[in-house]
């Protein structure tokens, strides 16, 4: 129970820090980050306290927001040649997910749709990997430790890579039975680790030189 509480409130902490440290990155394309953290912190807290059951549709909806948001957020950082591919991946995700729900492969309201999650996470991981490579190539002679973009990529890379196998299962209770709780623990653990990295990034990163 404690780990659930921690993993929920750490998201609120990340959101608060993203707002407090906004001046560090308001001149960059990362300025919309508080929106992402705010939406997630609000929904997690809302579901944790008031809407514990039958909330799966909300998370299915969040995946759409998440994938499109990451494609938008990292769009300027992937390099010119890859930008069209990012748009294509976002469109592909929306079309395929819409297709999955429309044709009844998944029940949007009652079922965790593994197809949509896995596709979305794959797209996000590809984009993050591309951004990391770009940071390495372009940001020569810059300390990675003080780059917020690097910590954002690293934090989300840890979360999405670790949770990919977990999200590939649609119905945890049926498939895992008594092991369901242990798997949930792993998910909470990955949330905590990734948010610790993000928090560290917000605190440790420096405002870029103003020229």
């Amino acid at each position: 129970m404690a780990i659930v509480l921690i993993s929920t409130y750490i998201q609120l902490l990340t959101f608060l820090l993203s707002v407090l440290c906004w001046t560090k990155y308001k001149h960059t394309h990362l300025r919309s980050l508080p929106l992402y953290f705010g939406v997630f912190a609000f929904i997690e807290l809302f579901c944790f306290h008031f809407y514990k059951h039958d909330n799966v549709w909300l998370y299915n909806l969040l995946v759409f927001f998440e994938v499109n948001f990451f494609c938008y957020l990292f769009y300027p950082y992937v390099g010119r040649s890859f930008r069209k591919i990012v748009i294509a991946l976002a469109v592909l995700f929306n079309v395929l997910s819409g297709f999955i729900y429309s044709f009844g492969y998944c029940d949007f309201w009652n079922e965790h749709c593994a197809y949509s999650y896995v596709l979305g996470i794959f797209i996000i991981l590809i984009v993050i990997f591309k951004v990391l490579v770009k940071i390495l190539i372009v940001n020569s002679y810059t300390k990675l430790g003080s780059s917020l973009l690097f910590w954002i990529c690293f934090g989300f890379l840890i979360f999405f890579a670790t949770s990919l196998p977990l999200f590939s299962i649609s119905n945890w209770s049926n498939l895992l039975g008594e092991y369901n709780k242990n798997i949930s623990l792993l998910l909470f653990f990955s949330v905590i680790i990734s948010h610790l990295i993000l928090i560290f990034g917000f605190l440790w990163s420096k405002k870029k030189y103003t020229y």
Partner: protein
Amino acid sequence: MEQKEIYLLIISASITFFVLSVSLAALFILMQRRRDIYQKEINKVRVEMVEQTLKNISWEIHDNIGQILSTMNLYGYKIHSEVPEKFQPPVEELQELIQTAISEVRGLSKSLNTDYIKNVGLIKSVELELDRFKRLSFMETEFEVMGQPFTIPNDSEVFLLRILQEFFSNTMKYAQAKKIDVKFIFEEKKLEVYVKDDGIGFDGSNIQGTGLLNMKNRARLIGAFLKLESELGKGTNLEIIYKRKVTENDE
């Protein structure tokens, strides 16, 4: 597949991905560090080449143009003593102009010569530089040194002066400033340099000039923190924080 097997499969896959992600990030940091060291070496060589070129120009100015002007000055004296009295005022004016030119050429030669900077030190070099602006009526200058100055290694002194010269040069070329303030604050473990002009400023987010990049690179080579801030209509501020290094004199 049994429940336990699925469970173990997911757990092991998650752990594998986790370890892979961490390793990937670590690898990135490692590669970046190696790249930084390499880049630093390249920059050092480049700056050394620039310094050598400046030194050569300084010698040329001093030995060549300086000598010609001195000879012209001697001829001036000769002409002055030989021409009728009514022609003497323009000759005197000419002599004054030659004297000014000689002192300007000497000043320029000194500010370009690394050896001279190393000999007279950073504070004196900045003073000379600012005096030159004042003499040429480019702008008003104010220079303040606070605290007890400590010994700065020669290379660092040259780099600090070059950063300041770059800033001064940009102020003169683009800022339309009337005044420039320079403040050195020597503390026990660091030197803080603040430079401020009252010019037109610039949009800090749009400028990517080579000169500004050179300032940044020079600061990094000596391990100094450099911040340049500007806003349209509000002038430009430069802040350098140089951490004191132990020199032979300190020991």
